[in-house]
C-alpha cells in the first residue's frame, strides 16, 4: 500500500500535468461520491487524487450559443436548481435527480456520473439523448467528444490516463421538443437503476416526429444509444404503433446480466415498459413546448 497523495490544482493544465506524472493509480476527484466510497471499501487504492473542484471552469453552468455549458463537477443540486437549464432539459434533470439522496446530489456531478462508467448511472442516458458533447482536455489539447463515446465498459472510459472531462455542452433545441427519463428500482429512492430509459424527441408543426434519440441504461456493459429505437419514432406522430416498434427495438438492444439488482428477463421486459412510458412523457412535453 503506497502513500496516497492529494492535490487540488487550480488550472486544467496543472491537473492534466499531475495526472500525466502519476506513477501508480490516479483518480480525478469531482464530487467524490463514487471515488471516496471505492477507497473506503478498498476497491481501489490510488496513489494520487486530483481534486478538480478548485478549477473554476469545471464548476459553472452558463448559456452558450443558445445552449448550455455545464461544468463537469457542477453538483446535482446546482444543476437541479438552475431554472433555465431545468426548464430546457427536464429529462436530464430527471436523471440527475435520481443520482442518490439529496446529500449525495450535494456533491455528485454529471462528470463523475459519466466517468465512473457505471452502466446504471442515471444522468447518462438522458445526456446521450440530449446529444451532449463532452469537452476533454489532455496534454495534447482539447477534444470535443459526444458523451456516448466516453464509457466503454463497466468502470472503463475512452479517456487517456491524463485526460479529464471539464464540461458538457448541451446544444440549443428546437421548439416542440421534449425529453424524459425514468428508471426502475425496487425502492422509490436510494437505489441503483435496474433499467433506465431516456428519450428526447422533436416534432414539427403537424406533430410529426422529426428527430428522436432513445438511450437505455443498466441493461448492457454501458448505457446505450439505440439508433433503431429512435428511428422507429421519426416520421410518426409517436402513436401507439410507432411506440410499439420503438419498444421492440429498445428491448432488442438490451444485453443485460443477471445480478443482485435484477434478472435478464426482468430487465428486458421492464425496459420496454419504461420505454413506452417515457415516450409518452417526452411526447407530452414536446407538445406543451410550443
Amino acid at each position, binding site marked *: *500500500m503506497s502513500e496516497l497523495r492529494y492535490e487540488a490544482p487550480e488550472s486544467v493544465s496543472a491537473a492534466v500535468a499531475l495526472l500525466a506524472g502519476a506513477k501508480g493509480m490516479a483518480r480525478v476527484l469531482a464530487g467524490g461520491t463514487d471515488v471516496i466510497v471505492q477507497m473506503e*471499501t*478498498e476497491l481501489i487504492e490510488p496513489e494520487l487524487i486530483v481534486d478538480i473542484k478548485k478549477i473554476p471552469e469545471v464548476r459553472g453552468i452558463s448559456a452558450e450559443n443558445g445552449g448550455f455549458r455545464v461544468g463537469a463537477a457542477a453538483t446535482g443540486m446546482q444543476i437541479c436548481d438552475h431554472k433555465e437549464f431545468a426548464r430546457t432539459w427536464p429529462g436530464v434533470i430527471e436523471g440527475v435527480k435520481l443520482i442518490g439522496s439529496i446529500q449525495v446530489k450535494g456533491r455528485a456531478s454529471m462528470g463523475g456520473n459519466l466517468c465512473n462508467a457505471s452502466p446504471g448511472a442515471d444522468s447518462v442516458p438522458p445526456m446521450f439523448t440530449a446529444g451532449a458533447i463532452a469537452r476533454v482536455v489532455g496534454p495534447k489539447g482539447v477534444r470535443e467528444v459526444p458523451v456516448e463515446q466516453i464509457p466503454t465498459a463497466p468502470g472503463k472510459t475512452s479517456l487517456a490516463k491524463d485526460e479529464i472531462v471539464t464540461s458538457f455542452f448541451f446544444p440549443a433545441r428546437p421548439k416542440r421538443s421534449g425529453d424524459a427519463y425514468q428508471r*426502475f428500482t*425496487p*425502492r*422509490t*429512492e*436510494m*437505489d*441503483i437503476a*435496474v433499467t433506465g430509459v431516456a428519450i428526447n424527441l422533436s416534432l414539427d408543426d403537424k406533430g410529426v416526429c422529426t428527430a428522436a434519440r432513445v438511450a437505455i441504461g443498466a441493461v448492457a456493459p454501458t448505457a446505450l444509444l439505440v439508433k433503431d429505437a429512435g428511428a422507429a419514432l421519426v416520421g410518426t406522430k409517436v402513436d401507439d404503433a410507432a411506440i410499439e416498434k420503438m419498444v421492440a427495438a429498445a428491448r432488442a438492444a438490451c444485453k443485460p446480466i443477471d*445480478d*443482485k*439488482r*435484477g*434478472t435478464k*428477463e*426482468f430487465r428486458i*421486459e*421492464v425496459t420496454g*415498459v419504461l420505454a413506452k412510458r417515457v415516450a409518452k412523457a417526452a411526447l407530452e412535453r414536446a407538445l406543451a413546448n410550443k
Partner: protein
Amino acid sequence: MAHDILDNSGFSADRKLKIVGTNPIKHDGWDKVTGAAKFSSDIVLPGMLVGKVLRSPHAHAVIKSIDTSAAEKLSGVKAVVTRADFPEIKEGTPYGDMTRMVIAREKVYHEGHPVAAVAATSESIAKRALKLIKVEYEVLPHVIDPVEAMKPDAPVLHAYMRTKGAKPGDAKVWADKASNVVERYELGVGDVAKGFAEAEFVVEHVYDTKPMHQGYIEPQSCVATASEEGEVELWCCTQAPFVYRDRLSEILKMDSSKIKVQQSELGGGFGGKTAFYAEPIAIQLARKARRPVKITFTRSEVFRGTGPVSGTQSRIKIGCRKDGTITAAEAELVFQTGPYSGSAFTNAPQAMFTRYDLPNVKTVSYEVVSNRPKVASFRAPCVPQVVFGVEDVMSELATKIGMDQIEFRLKNAMADGATTIYAEKFGKIGFIETLEAAKNCEHYKSPVPKGCGRGISTGFWFNRGGETSSSLQVAPDGSVTITLGTADVAGSRISISMMVAEELGIPVDKVRAVLADTHQLGFNRVTAGSRTTFSQGVVLVDCSRKVIKEMAGRAARIWKVPEEGVMFEDGMFRPASTNVGEFKPLSIADIAKQTTNTEGAIAARSDMNVTGAGPGFGCHIVDVKVDEETGFTEIVRYTVVEDAGKAIHPLQVEGQFQGGAVQGIGWALNEEYIFGTDGKMQNPGFLDYRMPVASDVPNIDTIIVEVPNPKHPYGLRGVGEVPVVPTMAAIANAIGNCIGIRPRSLPMSPPRLLKLLKEKKGKA
C-alpha cells in the same frame, strides 16, 4: 424467594392514573437531539488504539497456518491476536461454538468469519497491518441453502455433529453419521389424522422466507481496557450486558467479577445485539497491548459478520369444516441457523398457531447449519417466517368457505383460559378484543381502493419476564434515581420512570433512570422478547412500594406514632385517621430531607425472576397496489391493531407498532441476502440490501387495544415483538388479492412478482 408483587400485582382497573398513559418527553431525548448522547463508538480513552479484524474470504476452509510476524513488525502495531490467543474449549459445546464464532480455530465457516485482529495507533496502520497477515487456507466445498444442506451428499460443516432428536422413519435425519441438521423437534397435540378426516376443506402449501438483517443503523462498536491486575472493562452497545459478562467469563476463562460491562446508548438492536462479536477480540487485544482498544465495525462487516434472522422453508396444512371450525393443522419447518445452533427455532412451532384454539396439531421442525453468518435474535425470533404461511392458508380457507377473513379468525380464536400447544394455560388475553377492534375499524370497513388489494393477518408473541435486578434511591432533595441493568432499546427508560413516578406520586421529571454497569446490580437477563418495560415495571413498582413503606416508618417516627397510623396518598404521607393526631402531611421530599436525622439513606432494591408476562396479539390490515407491468408493490394504507395491555406511554407503543410493521414491509418486499456461487455475500451494504426508506412507506395507522394484564401492576403487556409477526403475511395476502395470485416466497420483489404474473397469464 416469594414476591408478593408477583402473586398479587395490585392491578386495579379503577385506579386513577396521573402519569401512566400520558406522553412525557424521554429524558434521554435531549442528548439525542443535540448530538451529546454517548453511543459506543463515541467513547475515547487515553492511549486508545484502533482495532481491526481480518476476515475469511472463503465460505468454508481449513486454516492451515497464520503468520502474523510481518504485521507485528509494522511500526504502530501494538498487538495482533489469532486463535492462539483464546483459550481452547471443546468443539461442539456451547462455549466451544461461541469462541469459534468470535475467532476461527480449525476452520472458517462463512465469508467474513474473523481469523485475526490487530490493534494499532491509527486506523490506516491497522488496515495496513491486516494486509501483512498471511493465512493459508485449504478451501472446502460449501453449502449456503439449508434445504441443500440437509441432503445426504451436502458438504458437512461439523464432522462431530449428530442430529439431536433423530427418529427412525424420518429420512431427513440420521443418527449414525454426521449431518448438518442440529436438531429435529416435534411438537403437537391431539390426533391430526382424525382431525383432517373431519375436515371438509384442506389447504396446504410450501413457503420460503429469506434471512433478513436486523438493520440497526449503529454498527457494533466497543472499547476494552485491561488493568495490570487483570481486570477488564468493556464499553459497548449491547442488549445484554450481564449475559456478555458471563459469556466472556466462560470463553476467556476469567472471573465474572473481574469483568465490568458498561452499556452505552444503543443505536438500534432489534435482537441483533444480544450476542457479542468483536468484544472478546477487543479485550484480548487490550490485554496484550496493555492499552485501551476500540473496534468499530464497518457496515460491510455488520452484514458479513453479524447475525441475520433465520430463513425458513415451511410446509403448512390446515383443515376446517364448512362452518369455519378448524379441525387440524400440520407443519414441517426448516430453519437456517448459520454455522452453529442458536436460532431459537422452537419458538416457531410453539407460536405459529397459538391464538387459534386447535384440537389437533402436529409440527416437525429442523434446525440446520450452513456456511453463512450465524443467525441472531430478531423481534419474535423465528415466528414471522412461519406465520407468513399460516396466515395464507387461513386466508385461503376463509375464501373457500365464503367467510369474512376476521370472522373466520374469530371463530377459532383463543379465549381467556385457553391452553396452548406448549401446555401453558392463558389467563386474561386480548385476542378476541384485538380482532373485534380490527373488524370495527374504519380501515377494515372502508371499501378497498380501486386497483388495490387488501390483506389481513394476525400474530402472537409469548412476551417474556425473567431475571431482573434494579435499585431505587431517594436523594435528600426527594428526587429519585433508578438504576437499571436492562438495556434501553427504544425508550424504555421513560416508561419505567413513569411507573415509578406514578407509584411515588411525584412528577416524572423527578425520576432519573441510569443504565448500570455489571458491577452495580445482580444478573439481568437480556433485553429481548418484549420483557423489559414489563419486568422493570414489576421490579421497580416493588422498589417504590418498599420505599413508601420505609418512608411511612420514618414519618411515624418523626410524628412518634405507630407505623399503622401513617397512610400514603397522592404523594403525601398523612395521618391514617384523626385519631392518630393532627400532623402536617409530609411529602417524599420532606422525609428525604430528614434522612440524616432518621436512619440514613432511603433506597430499595429488588431482584426477581419476573413471571406473569401477558401474551400479546395483533392484527394487521394492509392495502397494496401492484404495478402489473413492473411487479412494483406500493403500500397504500397500513393499520396495526394490537393489545398493549396498558399503554404506559402511548406514543412509545405506537412507535413500536409502526417500526415493527415497516421492518416487516422491508422483509416482505425487498430485503434479502444475495450470495454468489463462491459463497460470498454480494450485497453487504445499505445500497443493495434494500431496507425501506421514508418515501417507500405511508403513515402507519395504529389502534392500541387495552386488555390489562392482571399480573402487572399497571396491566401492561410487552409490545415490541408482535408488530412484525403478521406483516409479511398481511402484505402477501394483499398482493394476492390485488393480482389474483398469492406469492409464497420472500421477498416479494418486482422480478418475482412479474414472474408470477407472467405464469398466471400463461395459464389463462
